[in-house]
């Protein structure tokens, strides 16, 4: 029996609840399309509706995961707080820096790709699909064809790419969760499963 393996399983059961990323990804895509003035997304009322729907979806998915895969309270760790601060700095700082330096790369995609890779490396360890999806986001963002973020739609294209990547990663994470810990209904009587001990 390996201590690290057991601890990794506990982390995986928490961090691979990937469908939670789907509402977030949808929100990013809708934001990108709205900023570009595409179809019905250009109307202002779409924003609060989409935010509410994404919030509701997230809440329902959280409740479903908690019922089927259990509730866990993580330890508050100083390095997690420090990591969050650094991630926020990168997510805000890199797009600003790209704009200030007038670089032809996609700062939004670059920042989110780098932060996502670091996040998965720290929490559950990088899996092949994490590397493939977020590595592709970083690589695509570095292609020097994006143009000036002030005059082109490159930030909005970045939002859409990151949204699609978040959803794809989430779905694959969920599949991995199901493969590792069993399907949602497997062996767990949702109504009474927590009455044990």
């Amino acid at each position, binding site marked *: 029996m390996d201590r690290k393996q*057991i601890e990794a399983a*506990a982390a995986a059961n928490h961090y691979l609840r990937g469908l939670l990323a789907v509402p977030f990804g949808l929100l990013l895509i809708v934001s990108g399309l709205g900023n570009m003035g595409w179809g019905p997304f250009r109307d202002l009322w779409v924003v609060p509706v989409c935010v509410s729907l994404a919030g509701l979806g997230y809440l329902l998915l959280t409740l479903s995961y908690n019922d089927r*895969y259990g509730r866990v309270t*993580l330890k508050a760790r100083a390095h997690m707080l420090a990591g969050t601060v650094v991630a926020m700095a990168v997510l805000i700082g890199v797009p600003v820096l790209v704009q200030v330096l007038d670089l032809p790369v996609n700062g939004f995609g670059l920042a989110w790709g780098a932060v996502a890779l670091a996040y998965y490396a720290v929490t559950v360890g990088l899996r092949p699909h994490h590397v493939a999806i977020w590595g592709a986001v970083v690589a695509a963002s570095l292609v020097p064809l994006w143009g000036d973020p002030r005059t082109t739609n490159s930030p909005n294209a970045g939002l859409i790419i990151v949204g699609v990547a978040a959803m794809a990663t989430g779905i694959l994470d969920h599949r991995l969760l199901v493969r590792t*810990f069993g399907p949602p209904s497997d*062996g767990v009587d949702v109504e009474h499963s*927590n009455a044990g001990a």
Partner: protein
Amino acid sequence: MPEPERTFDRLLDRLIHEPGRLAILTVLSSVKAADFVFLQRTTGLTKGNLSSHLTKLEEAGLVAIQKRFVLKKPNTNVELTSEGRRRIADHWRQLDRLKALSEAPPEE
């Protein structure tokens, strides 16, 4: 020559060393608290086995079990006591030490 049983007891905590209980305590040592379903999913134990191990661990004062209702559903929340946290850390330290000893080259 010491009896093997006594040697085992001196080296390893028999209550903790059982694989199911070792898995439960190790999961709990990596988080602040977890409920019954989380432990069941993560350790792969059956409901009956998990329940019986948790009862033993609670009787030994290694875990604290709180039965509550979350959104009108029964929920069993489990966390390590300070004694449990100390004992599982000691146990893994002892296992690591034994592993290192077994891997060390034999003395001439």
